C-alpha cells in the first residue's frame, strides 16, 4: 500500500555558514494494508520527513514514494488534495481550524470530499461519539483540553474513512492518562481495518503496543522489526 524506495531527502543550507541537512538517507520500507506501524527515533531522526513525503508536502531528493499504486513525488500540486483525502493526518500540535466549532472541524474534512449534506449530518455526530466528544460539538477548539483537541484531530482524520491514518507525535503534548486514551483509539481504528502509521519517540508506547516498529536514526532505517521494541 505504501512504499518508500531508496528515498533520500536533503534540505539545502538555510544560510551560508550552514551545511545541508540530510533528513532521510536511502530509506526503504513497505507498509501493507491494515498494518499498524510505529516509526520511532529521536527528534530529528526523520520521522516527520517520512510523513511529509507521504502526504506530498515535500518531494524526495532521491528515490520514489508510492501510495496505493500512485507515485506521490510525481503528483502535480493540483492533484494533491485528492491524495490527501485518502490519508487521515494527526499532528502533535493538532492543527485544528480555530474559528470553526468541533462539529465544523470534523465536517470540513468530509465536505472537501464532496460528501452530501445528509451524510455530513449523519457521520459527524457518529464519529464525535466514537472519540467521546459528542457533548462538545458546538465548542471552539480553544475551549477544549489537550486530550480533547487530539481526539478531535483524530475524529477529523477518520471521518472520511481514509485508507490510512498517519499520526506525527500525536501524544507529544498530552499527559500519560490522555496518551493511552489516544493510543487505544488508534488501536481500535486499526482493528476496524484502517492502516495506521504512528510516528513517536515515546518509549512506553512503543514497548507496550507490540506492533511493527521501524527505527530511524540520522535519517536511516536501522531496524524494521515485526513486533519491535524501542531500541534507541
Amino acid at each position: 500500500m505504501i512504499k518508500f524506495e531508496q528515498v533520500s531527502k536533503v534540505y539545502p543550507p538555510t544560510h551560508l555558514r550552514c551545511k545541508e541537512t540530510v533528513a532521510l538517507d536511502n530509506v526503504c520500507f513497505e507498509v501493507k494494508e491494515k498494518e499498524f506501524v510505529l516509526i520511532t527515533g529521536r527528534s530529528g531522526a526523520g520521522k516527520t520527513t517520512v510523513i511529509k513525503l507521504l502526504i506530498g508536502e515535500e518531494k524526495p531528493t532521491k528515490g520514489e514514494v508510492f501510495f496505493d499504486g500512485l507515485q506521490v513525488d510525481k503528483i502535480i500540486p493540483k492533484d494533491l488534495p485528492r491524495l490527501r483525502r485518502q490519508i487521515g493526518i494527526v499532528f502533535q500540535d493538532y492543527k485544528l481550524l480555530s474559528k470553526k466549532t468541533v462539529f465544523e472541524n470534523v465536517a470540513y474534512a468530509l465536505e472537501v470530499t464532496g460528501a452530501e449534506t445528509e451524510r455530513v449530518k449523519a457521520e459527524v455526530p457518529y464519529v464525535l461519539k466514537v472519540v467521546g466528544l459528542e457533548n462538545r460539538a458546538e465548542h471552539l477548539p480553544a475551549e477544549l483540553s489537550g486530550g480533547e483537541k487530539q481526539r478531535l484531530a483524530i475524529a477529523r482524520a477518520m471521518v472520511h474513512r481514509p485508507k490510512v491514518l498517519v499520526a506525527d507525535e500525536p501524544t507529544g503534548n498530552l499527559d500519560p492518562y490522555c496518551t493511552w486514551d489516544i493510543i487505544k483509539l488508534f488501536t481500535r481504528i486499526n482493528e476496524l481495518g484502517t492502516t495506521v502509521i504512528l510516528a513517536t519517540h515515546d518509549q512506553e508506547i512503543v514497548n507496550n503496543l507490540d506492533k511493527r516498529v521501524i527505527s530511524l536514526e540520522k535519517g536511516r532505517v536501522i531496524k524494521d522489526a515485526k513486533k519491535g521494541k524501542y531500541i534507541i
Partner: protein
Amino acid sequence: MLAAFKRIIKAGWRDFTRNLGLSLVTIFAIFLAVSLVTSIFVFRGAANFVIRSLESKFDISVYFKEDTSEKDIFRTKNMLLDMAEVESVDYVSKDQALADFKLKHLDNQVITDALNEIGDNPFLAALNIKAASASSYEAINQFLNQKSFNNLIDKVDYYQTKPIIERFYSLSANIQKIGLVLALVLAIIAFAIAFMTVRLTIQNSGEEIGIMRLVGADNWFILGPFVVQGVICGLAAFLLGLVVFGGLSYAVSPFIFTLTSGFQIFPYVVSNLLAIIGIQILTGVGLGAVSSLVAVGQYLKK
C-alpha cells in the same frame, strides 16, 4: 457542485459574522475607497456644471453692414447653425438693438439726448453666437472671416473677447487635468489602503489555509469563502456608502448650490443614481473580491 457552492457561500457568511471586528475594519476601508470614487464622480459633475455655466456667459457678435439684407443675415445664421461648433445663434435686428439700448439706459438722460441728437438708428443688425465649447470660438471666427462674407459683415467682435476665452479655456483644461491626476492619485491610495486591509485580515488566516490544504481541500474550496467574505464586505461598504453619500449630498446641497452658483448636488445624485450605484457596487464588490483572491492566492502558491 451546487452543494460545494452552497457550502462556500455559507462558510463565507459564517466567517464574516464570526470575525465581525475584522469584517467591520474591512468594510470601513472599502467604504473609504467607494466614497472617494463616488466623490470623484460627483465632483466631475459639479466641475462640468461650473465650466458650462461660465462658458454660457461667452458669446461672439457678428455685426452686419448697413446694406446687408435680412435674407442674407438669416442665410448666414442658418449656415452657422449647421456648424457642429455652434450651439445657438440669436438675431438682433437694428430696431431691436436700439430698443434694447434705450431700455438699458432709460434713466440716463445724457445718452437719451445724444440718441435723439443723432436722429438715425446708429446700431447695426447682429448675430450673437454661442459656441458648444470655449475651444470652438476660433473655428467660428475663421468661418466668419471667409471672403464670401466680406461684403456682408462689418465686424466680428471675437478679438476683444478672445484673450478672456482663451485664458478660460486653458484654465478649465488645466483644472480638468489636475483634477483627473489628483482623483487618480487619491483613488490609488484609497484602493491600496483597502487592499492592504483585506490582506492583513487574511494574513491572520495563513495558518488555517495551510491546515485546509493538509486536510485535502482544493484551492477553490479554500479560496471561495474568503472571496464571499470580501464580496459581503464590499456590498456592506456599498450600502453604507450609498446611505452616507445620499444623506450628505442632501445636507450640503444648499451650500454647494451657493458655492457653485447653481449646482444642485442632491438632484444630481438622484438623477445619476443608477450610475452611482453601479460605480459603488463595482468598486466595493470588486475591491473586496479581488483583494481576497490575491491575498489568499499568495498562500495557495506556497
